[in-house]
């Protein structure tokens, strides 16, 4: 990557287009703050929003001693070899975002992690919303169009304070030779809300992740929504977990998975460990090629006052639905594409419009291939 790249705008046209599909915006007036990392190099970090900081994690570690209280607290260092790899790094990379008490952004913050050269990209991100604060983060992760092999290992720790809200929307656009190992967890305090959305409809070699939300305060809420499409030779082993540890906390884990020849393992685990808690897992899969969709929902009730349920359905598109649309004059291909589009259309409650639009756009971009 040439040294004169100062931001998204300096990238070649084709690469910009790719990043735009992951929801990243060149025009900073549409974003409250931004973090941009190519390989291991931090290109840009900053925030225009009042009460919200965006810093490279290395700088934040030097500046704020209290960061120790957050660093490797939600995700344990020794969790697996990937977390251990990130923990070993002498020069940590990643973004630190903190919204101070009561600070809110209307515009989303964006983080862009771009893998251009043949090697491992590692990041460690800390996202904090203090009491009553509200943060919307969109992270686009992509690799350069030229076909590099590589791995991306990302640790992200979210801290949702009392009555605070974090929405994290991650849109991936990797290459067929890239493997991706996100390792994230969220601590959600009393009355806090954590919405995590994940979209990947482009080729990738392998994605493996299983983020956990720890609901640690009364009435805390978490929702994970994942929309993935496994093309041939892609493997997704994705899941999400919620530990309903305090009274009245709740979680919803929603997945829409399509295979066109690749493999999808969709895991989900909700633990109801306190009274008045509610958890639901919903996984729907469409098999459109010789691929595999394996749904493994687990619900674990530990007290009487918890209410947990799951719902999983995997299959092909119903012939009856295709013919219904054909009877209105659509061709078989148009009917199929229309049904797939609808299948992926998970409207996420509480998500700002701009972010929902980005998700819709990612699906639209993939629609040509349905």
């Amino acid at each position: 990557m040439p040294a004169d790249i100062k931001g998204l705008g300096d990238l070649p046209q084709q690469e910009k287009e790719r990043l735009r599909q992951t929801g990243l915006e060149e025009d900073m007036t549409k974003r409250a703050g931004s973090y941009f990392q190519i390989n291991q190099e931090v290109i840009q970090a900053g925030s225009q929003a009042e009460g919200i900081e965006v810093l490279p994690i290395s700088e934040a570690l030097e500046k704020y001693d209290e960061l120790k209280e957050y660093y490797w607290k939600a995700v344990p260092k020794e969790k697996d070899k990937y977390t251990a790899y990130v923990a070993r790094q002498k020069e940590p990379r990643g973004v630190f975002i903190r919204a101070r008490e009561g600070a809110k952004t209307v515009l989303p913050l964006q983080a862009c992690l771009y893998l251009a050269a043949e090697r491992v990209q590692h990041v460690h991100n800390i996202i904090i919303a203090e009491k009553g604060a509200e943060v919307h983060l969109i992270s686009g992760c992509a690799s350069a169009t030229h076909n590099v092999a590589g791995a991306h290992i990302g640790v992200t720790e979210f801290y949702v304070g009392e009555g605070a809200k974090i929405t994290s929307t991650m849109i991936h656009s990797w290459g067929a030779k890239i493997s991706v190992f996100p390792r994230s967890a969220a601590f959600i305090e009393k009355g806090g809300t954590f919405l995590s959305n994940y979209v990947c409809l482009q080729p990738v070699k392998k994605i493996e992740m299983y983020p956990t939300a720890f609901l640690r305060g009364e009435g805390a809420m978490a929702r994970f929504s994942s929309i993935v499409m496994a093309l041939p030779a892609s493997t997704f082993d994705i899941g999400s977990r919620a530990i309903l540890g305090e009274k009245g906390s709740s979680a919803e884990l929603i997945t829409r998975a399509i295979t066109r020849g690749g493999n999808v393992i969709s895991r989900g685990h909700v633990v109801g460990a306190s009274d008045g808690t509610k958890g639901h897992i919903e996984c729907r899969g469409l098999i459109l090629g010789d691929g595999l969709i394996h749904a493994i929902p687990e619900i674990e009730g530990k007290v009487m006052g918890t209410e947990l349920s799951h719902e999983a359905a995997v299959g092909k598109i119903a012939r009856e639905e295709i013919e219904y649309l054909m009877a209105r004059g659509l061709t078989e291909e148009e009917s199929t594409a229309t049904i797939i589009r609808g299948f992926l259309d998970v409207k996420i409650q509480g998500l700002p419009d701009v972010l929902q639009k980005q998700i819709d756009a990612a699906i639209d971009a993939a629609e040509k291939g349905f």
Partner: protein
Amino acid sequence: MLEIEDLHVEVGNKEILHDINLRIEKGETHVLMGPNGSGKSTLLMAIMGFSGPRVTKGLIVFKGKDITDMPVNERAKMGIGIMFQRPPTIAGLKLGKLLNVVKRGNDQTIEDYAKSLNMEALLNRDINRGFSGGEIKRSEVLQLIVQKPDFMLLDEPESGVDLENMALMGRSIAHLLEKDRHLVHREKGGLIITHTGYILDYLDADGGHVLIDGEIRCHGNPREILKVVKRSGYRECLKCPQI
């Protein structure tokens, strides 16, 4: 416009329709009656070309062309439209979006069409998801209004529709069938399944048929058939092939 000759249809591995013969001329609307389970919906679905019912023998000819083996969408292109008795729900597909796709070139907005059937509130809903019985019927008619077929297969348009909406639907269907045009100019036609005959309050039908156990057992004037069935039940139709 539509000719059916010696048609045999299986569902699963069971023959449901035996030796059906039917002829509907351009500009004509016929009604189809018969007991529950006699095969009426199956016949409509076979005419539309769905893969559930399988034609094992016979011919379906539309506008002079043999369409027996034609895909569903090509039949739609040729001008056949259907109102389903029990349409499927399609998750994530908004009624409004489908209508926009079906509309293709035409200028009138979907909202205008929807208003005419009191349906604006449903445009933003997933198609058929949680629609009430009457809403399903109106949504089906709305789709036909936008599609503008030449020949309509209507499966029980009146069942589940309240009186007020029935008037709205009846008038819309009559308009679709060009009942407001003079006989000689009328080009559109249809085949309507009805149990009650209420639809006949809004449009005149040119012929009636009674299907019993997969066979058409009598032809005649629709109002006469209705009268006989009301009085003495379908048994009476068996006695008399022509009412």
